């Protein structure tokens, strides 16, 4: 039996853990053991999944043995398993950090005890989104992680968090509704939501319908990924949450949006229909994000803006639809999850040690806590893309891909990318100069904690350890950049090729069919049967036929596999 067929456990284990921790609401210690154990187990499983598809090989796991495109299919390929491993590793570090913070603060049975179940549901949602082989399951994965994130963001119910929570919930619900509308129209037009099946059938639609669906999906995912005109909710809502929550949100939630965008661009709508708009969006995301970061004085807000800014790099790599560009995006996503999360964890440590996260009021931290300075300095330089760190390698790949593409728009984004990485360095150096380098006397109204000698409780060893572990993971991405970039490249090749994905789910005939549609000039094979825009293309709805009934060889069977 292939290890990859255990993929559903990546979703089921955290949900099971959430149920158990929910039953153990009053037993803090048992809760901690269960949730850390479950996340560690999930991580081990996902490392196994990655190993089983390393170097090529896509595995589709039909749930309940329903034959695709019927039923729910989970798909494990190199991209999804890489994302799973990185996200679980990061979640584990954040969980250890959060648990240690809880122990240090001694909060007994407050609302904080909901933290563990919500956190585990969040992980289950992220895993489900990464594994989903059909659009509706992707939607369910999104909803799981979003609902959990609503709870996590408003933990404690303070005024600031409730205010941020309201904005966040409304924006998220609207983005989910857009996604759901897109699913409805996709289903009306093709009669299926299975992504491999869609890859075959979307190519047969008229170009107008294709662009409509494409744009709707990208807008839905773009809000989640915080791409420029849709990014304003993020710096507004993230900074108010507790440090570990902000860290895990910053690391994972936007990346799930990016992941969905990658799947849309490669699997569902290959080709370069929207590449130029995506590049414009990437450029604006980078520039507007980093300019926002430079205006901030609160470290968490500053980091939220750099988060938005660097999403632009990933969108840029995606928009080039070349192997090297997409491979760089894959690598950059891994790098950015790790680095951004560790920076937010460090910001949490700074806040604990110095009593504030405002760089106006900070100073002298380098002398006060050299370890903290080191933990900030490494990921900060990594984010700015200083050689030889992984941020540099990812950006280098993107720039190479942009120059190789050579269109004026791509070159413009390359120039903006270099400028933005310099501005990131400036933003990071501002924090460094103010918070760490100058003396505490230079700070405005410094917090008493900054001038007092260190308290033991301010920086518990496990919190520092978890942060250090994550910084170490960031460095490991640099050290093992060679093999990781190779596997990113293999993943990118697979995604652009589409054949491995489609044939894993539907068999090789469907893959050939999809490739043949791709080679045809778009839309010319179809009589213009569908009204562009306005009218809902329900004409092709299966009307009475079972969904996916058009696919050769798949009949609505009831579970039993011959």
């Amino acid at each position, binding site marked *: 039996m292939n290890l990859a067929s255990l993929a559903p456990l990546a979703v089921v284990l955290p949900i099971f853990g959430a149920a158990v921790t929910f039953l153990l609401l009053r037993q803090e210690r048992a809760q901690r053991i269960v949730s850390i154990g479950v996340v560690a187990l999930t991580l081990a499983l996902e490392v196994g999944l990655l190993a089983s598809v390393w170097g090529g090989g896509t595995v589709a796991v039909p749930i309940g043995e329903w034959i695709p495109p019927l039923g729910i299919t989970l798909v494990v390929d190199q991209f999804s398993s890489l994302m799973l491993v990185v996200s679980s590793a990061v979640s584990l570090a954040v969980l250890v950090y959060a648990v240690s913070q809880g122990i240090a603060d001694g909060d007994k049975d407050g609302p904080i005890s909901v933290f563990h179940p919500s956190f585990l549901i969040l992980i289950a949602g992220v895993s489900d989104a990464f594994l989903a082989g059909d659009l*509706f399951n992707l939607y*369910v994965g999104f*909803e799981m992680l979003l*609902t959990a994130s*609503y*709870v996590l963001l*408003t933990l404690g*119910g303070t*005024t600031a968090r*409730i*205010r*941020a*929570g*309201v*904005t966040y*919930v*409304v924006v998220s*619900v*609207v983005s*989910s*509704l857009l996604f*759901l*509308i897109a*699913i*409805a*129209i996709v*289903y*009306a037009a093709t009669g299926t*939501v299975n992504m491999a099946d869609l890859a075959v059938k979307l190519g047969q639609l008229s170009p107008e319908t294709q662009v409509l669906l494409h744009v709707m999906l990208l807008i839905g995912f773009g809000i989640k990924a915080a791409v420029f005109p849709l990014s304003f909710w993020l710096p*507004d809502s993230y*900074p108010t949450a507790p440090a570990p929550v902000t860290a895990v949100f910053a690391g994972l939630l936007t990346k799930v949006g990016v992941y969905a965008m990658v799947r849309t661009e490669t699997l569902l709508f290959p080709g370069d229909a929207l590449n130029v708009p995506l590049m414009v969006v990437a450029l604006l995301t980078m520039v507007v994000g980093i300019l926002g970061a430079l*205006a*901030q*004085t*609160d470290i968490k*807000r500053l980091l939220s803006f750099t988060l938005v800014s660097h999403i632009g790099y990933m969108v840029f790599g995606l928009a080039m639809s070349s192997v090297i560009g997409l491979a760089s995006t894959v690598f950059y996503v891994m790098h950015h999850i790790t680095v951004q999360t560790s920076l937010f964890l460090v910001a949490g440590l700074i806040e604990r040690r110095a009593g504030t996260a405002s760089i106006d009021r900070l100073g002298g931290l380098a002398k006060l806590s050299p370890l903290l300075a080191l933990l900030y300095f490494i990921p900060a330089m990594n984010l700015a893309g200083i050689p030889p760190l992984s941020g540099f390698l990812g950006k280098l790949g993107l720039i190479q891909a942009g120059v190789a593409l050579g269109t004026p728009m791509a070159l413009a984004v390359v120039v903006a990318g270099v400028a933005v990485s310099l501005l990131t360095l400036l933003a990071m150096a*501002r924090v460094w100069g*103010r918070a760490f380098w*100058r003396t505490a006397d*230079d700070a405005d109204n410094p917090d008493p904690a900054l001038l007092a000698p260190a308290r033991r409780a301010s920086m518990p060893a496990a919190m520092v350890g978890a942060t250090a572990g994550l910084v170490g993971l960031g460095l490991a991405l640099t050290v093992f950049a060679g093999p990781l970039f190779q596997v990113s490249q293999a993943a990118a090749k697979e995604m652009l090729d589409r054949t491995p994905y489609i044939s894993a789910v539907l068999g090789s005939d469907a893959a050939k069919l999809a490739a043949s549609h791709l080679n045809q000039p778009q839309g010319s094979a179809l009589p213009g049967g569908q009204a562009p825009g306005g009218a*809902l293309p*329900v*004409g092709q*709805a*299966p*009307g*009475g*036929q*079972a*969904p996916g*009934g058009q696919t050769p060889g798949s009949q*609505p069977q*009831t579970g039993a596999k011959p």
Partner: protein
Amino acid sequence: MSPNLTLLLISGVLFACGIYLLLERSLTRVLLGLLMLTNGVNLLLLTTGGYAGLAPFFSKGTDPRSYSDPLPQAFVLTSIVISFAVTGFMLALIYRTWQLGRADEVADDLEDRRVAAQSGWVPEEDADVPADLSEFPSLVEAAEADRAALAAAPHAADLPDDAVLGDAVPLAAGPHDEEEPE
């Protein structure tokens, strides 16, 4: 086959009203707007299933085309459950907002307001470096330099960056002198 016009029209009306309510500042109205939008989407999902056929229970000898499509109904069910949970959560948030501030409104982000209101000129970063280059200027010196620059150029309050450079004002005046003869 044609889509069910009634369902589509109702869904359109729900969308319109939902978006209108969503743009309000009162949280309760925002919630009502979200509910309307959700129901609009649910109706849209339902219409994608095509015409209403027989209940999709398998019975021998029935033409498969006469069943109605069960998948959109499953979608709608899932979506209803999710929106139920989110509505419950939103109600809790609204109640908490009321408890905390006796208000039922989307509040402003104060930090955002503060950042927007701040001057682009930061003494520590933008002040003139003293000629002896001994250390960073103290805040007092920087503030004095700023005040002097402000006194020299009354308009400089709008252009704080120029005000920092002592000689920026005559330079900025330069082009105007050239334009006047033309």
